[in-house]
């Protein structure tokens, strides 16, 4: 029987961590792009667009991420397309992330005084120009801290991709546990690695928050 030393377990987990990081980055950046588009729709004042984004956010915030993963995994297959766990996980996590980011950013946009909208409107800026040159630069300053804070949720969210069979850190932990029968060690290491990924982000978010409050 193959023997696993402590270092074998750790190095295998670290290899899988790479996929957790890749999945997190893709979900966060693609989610950010989709979120930005949704933000424009959400604050546009056009009723059907607002209605659509509202229900989009309601769905992704009101159902478990696990259910969303299942729905994508089995839902896309209904169209006769071969779905890999990788594809379902990136899609579901991207859309899930976008819903939360839109909602965070909307709060930041709404905290910009109305006078800014009115002033830029009197300068004959279009809605897109208003957002691009006046509102978003100011909102971005407030948005950075909660956005970094949310990135922790994205990293933790990727753990659920293990359930539909995508091999990342959690799945690697389960597989190693099945091979070594040392659950205490394996899951402690998995938790420690997640902690090392997430804690700096949490710490940074808190730091940013403090700096913003001091500036005011």
């Amino acid at each position: 029987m193959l023997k696993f030393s402590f270092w074998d377990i750790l190095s295998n987990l670290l290899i899988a961590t790479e996929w957790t990081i890749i999945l997190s980055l893709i979900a966060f950046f693609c989610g950010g792009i989709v979120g930005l588009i949704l933000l424009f729709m959400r604050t546009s004042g056009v009723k059907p667009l607002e209605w659509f984004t509202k229900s989009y956010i309601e769905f992704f915030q009101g159902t478990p991420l696990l259910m969303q993963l299942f729905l994508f995994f089995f839902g896309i297959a209904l169209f006769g397309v071969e779905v890999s766990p990788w594809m379902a996980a990136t899609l579901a996590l991207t859309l899930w992330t976008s819903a939360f980011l839109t909602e965070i950013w909307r709060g930041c946009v709404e905290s910009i005084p109305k006078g800014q909208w009115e002033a830029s409107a009197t300068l004959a800026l279009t809605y897109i120009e208003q957002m691009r040159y006046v509102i978003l630069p100011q909102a971005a300053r407030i948005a950075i801290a909660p956005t970094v804070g949310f990135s922790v949720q994205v990293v933790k969210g990727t753990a659920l991709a293990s359930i539909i069979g995508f091999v990342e850190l959690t799945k690697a932990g389960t597989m190693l546990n099945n091979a070594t029968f040392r659950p205490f060690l394996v899951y402690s290491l998995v938790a420690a690695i997640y902690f090392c990924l997430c804690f700096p982000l949490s710490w940074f978010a808190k730091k940013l928050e403090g700096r913003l409050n001091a500036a005011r």
Partner: protein
Amino acid sequence: MLYKLEFGDLLPYWDVLLQGLVFTIVLTVVSTVAGIAVGTAGASARTFGPAWLGRVVVVYVELIRNTPFIVQLFFIFFGLPAAGVTLSETTAAFIAMVINLGAYSTEIIRAGIQAIPKGHIEAGVSLAMSKWEVLRHIVLNQAFRKIYPALSSQIIIVMLGSSVVSQISAQDLTYAANFVASRNFRNFEVYLLAALAYLLLAMLTRSLLRGLGRIIFKAE
């Protein structure tokens, strides 16, 4: 679409799904009550307790907040038996949920406590109130009023997060959905139905908590 949805195939399993739904609700309610109790104790210890206790609370909060719930669950269910603590899947699910919400609510309640002006506490002390009376009537009373909305959203997040307990075969709504899917292979239909049930539950919980908040904090 090449595929025709068949929701009718779910009908024979309505009792399984209902049982799962009930389990999810019970799990949420129990872990909410216990989790907030843990959070209140944690936040009080962090702000007013001795320094060493405060540090223990910080470590607990940061450990839980920076690791995924599913890993915590696996650690409790698969990891702890190796250390001599064996739990049933239901107990493990309840414990994991309480520990998880406890950490988040500690942080939320602590923020509420910190927002209370120092003068209020000093005023209470100068009125010869005991430490516990100050905590109960001045500090926590006001803190909860302030953080109630944040706590409500956290409760909903935890409720949705509870779907993960199906992975250690605790028999919640997601477990029931998995079970039905494995019987009739109507994966998409059953997961869609379960997702809608969660959505409805989340909306219901939100308005219920809002109404409850109005009753509890109706003074002022």
